[in-house]
């Protein structure tokens, strides 16, 4: 099932990355932004003496919840219903979009204000609503920039990370009808223009659509964590609130939030506490929306849950710490990943949500340097899952009639390496071949499949005598072993 996930995998990562690398402005914007967040995160995480214990607690909580997910979801449904909300179950993107569109149409409204949400991006909700004649207004500043520019988010937390303020000024001037004519690229001026533009939407909207950072099974409480206050506006002013939430976002008890609300802001933006944490439980007379709908989205999550190694990806709390420390992400940005979930977490989440065979290049878009695993507040072992998914990709291709060149090379390597004698012969052949093409002890640019490597790097000429041969020559008494 690949229809569930929007904008998937064209072209494959290496080609998309090549294009992104050529954009020097993009690389400068990304390097500056990720570097700043990275340093800030390290500083504030080091302030907590029990940071490592918090990470362990979070990982344990997530894994336990995932193991008993059906039970907690049923409990959540009961709590939300008891508190006056309505719960809807959506198996995939199409079903979730249909549910939301019908709920909006039932109110008679033609526009909605939106709180930044990864789940609704994952299912392409804005596009689906537009097809039904409903306009969705993003109210998060960065999401607004992306929406106005007809662009795609490039980061989970900082969707417009790939834009600098000069570019943002141009986007506002050309796409925002009420932007002042003399708008400068001062952050304050840009924020003020966006505030005025959005204020009018908040006051008019009767329906809001949000995602959820967490939902508490025990109480039916849903939480959104944000920085700008736009979310708070959407969650309190309109009459109807529709929340779309991935089923993995449930936590068992209210007390569990203690762990996550310490980990999330520090990991995400390097802040001790996020400015706005909004929590609501069903509906209350004369306070906030009078109608509340919770759409529980599967869209590949149940399938992911069946994979005992891969399921840990569902523990993700969308903090983006892995993006900000990833050397690959830092150089190519989010668009190259071809999914709303970019970076290391995207490389393991997207192929699983979409199913084997889709986004096949993503598990290979990593050097396995491990920086993401060290940064992850819920200790998702991203390198472990990457290698696990690589094995699944390779195994899925084994049945083919014509084997891949790579599989032939790997098999040949094992054949050689399975026997010390064959390795010795290969070393002799390699040393001879190397001396034929080498110059001054180095091998320069090569043709064919090796050119990508040898374009930027010299290779050493294999020495005439391997270590093995040297040892046998100098330690003849031990050669019989």
């Amino acid at each position, binding site marked *: 099932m690949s229809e569930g996930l929007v904008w998937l995998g064209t072209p494959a990562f290496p080609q998309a990355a090549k294009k992104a690398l050529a954009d020097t402005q993009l690389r400068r914007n990304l390097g500056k932004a990720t570097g700043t967040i990275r340093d800030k995160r390290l500083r504030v995480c080091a302030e907590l003496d029990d940071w490592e214990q918090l990470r362990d607690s979070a990982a344990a909580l997530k894994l336990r919840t995932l193991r008993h997910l059906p039970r907690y979801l049923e409990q959540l449904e009961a709590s939300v219903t008891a508190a006056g909300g309505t719960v809807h179950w959506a198996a995939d993107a199409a079903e979730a979009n249909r549910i939301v569109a019908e709920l909006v149409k039932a109110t008679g409204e033609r526009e909605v204000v939106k709180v930044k949400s990864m789940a609704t991006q994952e299912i392409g909700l804005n596009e689906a609503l537009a097809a039904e004649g409903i306009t969705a207004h993003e109210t998060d500043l960065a999401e607004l920039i992306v929406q106005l520019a007809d662009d795609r988010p490039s980061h989970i937390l900082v969707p417009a990370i790939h834009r600098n303020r000069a570019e943002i000024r141009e986007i506002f001037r050309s796409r925002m009808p009420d932007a002042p004519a003399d708008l400068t690229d001062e952050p304050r001026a840009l924020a003020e223009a966006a505030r005025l533009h959005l204020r009018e939407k908040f006051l008019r909207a009767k329906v809001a659509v949000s995602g959820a950072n967490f939902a508490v099974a025990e109480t039916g409480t849903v939480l959104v964590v944000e920085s700008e206050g736009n979310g708070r506006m959407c969650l309190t002013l309109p009459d109807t609130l529709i929340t779309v939430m991935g089923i993995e976002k449930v936590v068992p008890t209210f007390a569990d939030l203690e762990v996550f609300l310490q980990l999330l802001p520090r990991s995400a933006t390097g802040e001790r506490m996020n400015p706005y944490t909004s929590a609501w439980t069903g509906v209350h007379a004369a306070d906030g929306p009078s109608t509340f709908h919770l759409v529980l989205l599967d869209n590949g999550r149940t399938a992911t849950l069946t994979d005992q190694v891969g399921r840990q990806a569902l523990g993700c709390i969308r903090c983006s710490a892995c993006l900000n420390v990833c050397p690959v992400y830092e150089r190519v940005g989010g668009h190259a990943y071809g999914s709303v979930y970019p970076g290391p977490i995207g490389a393991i989440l997207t192929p699983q949500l979409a199913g084997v065979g889709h986004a096949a290049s993503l598990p290979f878009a990593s050097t*396995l340097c491990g920086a993401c695993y060290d940064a992850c507040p819920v200790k998702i072992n991203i390198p472990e899952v990457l*290698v696990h998914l*690589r*094995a699944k990709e390779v195994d899925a291709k084994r049945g083919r009639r014509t084997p891949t060149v790579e599989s032939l090379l790997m098999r040949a*390597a094992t054949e050689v390496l399975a026997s010390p004698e064959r390795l010795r012969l290969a*070393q002799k052949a390699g040393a001879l071949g190397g001396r034929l093409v080498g110059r001054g002890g180095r091998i320069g640019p090569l043709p064919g499949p090796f050119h990508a490597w040898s*374009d930027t*790097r010299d290779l050493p000429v294999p020495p005439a005598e391997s*270590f093995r041969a040297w040892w046998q020559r100098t330690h003849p008494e*031990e050669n019989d072993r």
Partner: protein
Amino acid sequence: MRVALFITCFNDTLFPETGKAVVRLLERLGHQVDFPLGQTCCGQPQFNTGYRPEARPLVRRFAEAFAGYDAVVTPSGSCAAMVREHHPLLAADDPGLRRAVAQVAPKVHELSEFLVDVLGVTDVGAYYPHRVTYHPTCHSLRMLRVGERPLRLLRAVKGIELVELPAAEECCGFGGTFAVKNPDVSAAMLADKMRHVLDSRAEVLTAGDNSCLLHIGGGLGRLRTGVRTVHLAEILAATEGEAR
């Protein structure tokens, strides 16, 4: 103590001087070492690229070649990590192999771990009169957690001028087959790593893994920067008598 050398297929074939340096160093410290000729490769390229069935015969070969030793020492952080972290996983479905791996894998040490933790030395009596910077390779840093061990060894080297490498903990972009599958990203990461090496003003870049050094050294060589890459073992093995 029966100490075996695991020289790794990569060092064996392309960087025999590193293996010879390990032999010289350990013999100088009074230890007799053995090179089991049955060894070939730890299977890391196959495993990391997703070819698990292809890696398994190499796991078996490794466990057989190194059975019966008290310690195994290797001049490669990533191969030590492969054996300690991933051989048990690859052997999980085969009870016999699982037992053999459980015997051998915990005894495998990367060189700086072996010197500091097993032999208890930090001053190995080396002399190396050059300006050196150290790149902590990802697997040494984040899988083995070798931490300060290589730096403690380097600081004790006579004549050395150790200089800091900016953004040292950032990956060089090699990543085994990553450099082949994603050549452009790999080259971009390499370019930044080279810039940091040049900023450090070192004459020599050292690390505990020749694969990363091959990558960075290949780039530095292509640009004719004059900066050399030398494995940690070769610096620690160097003595005053040698002209290098």
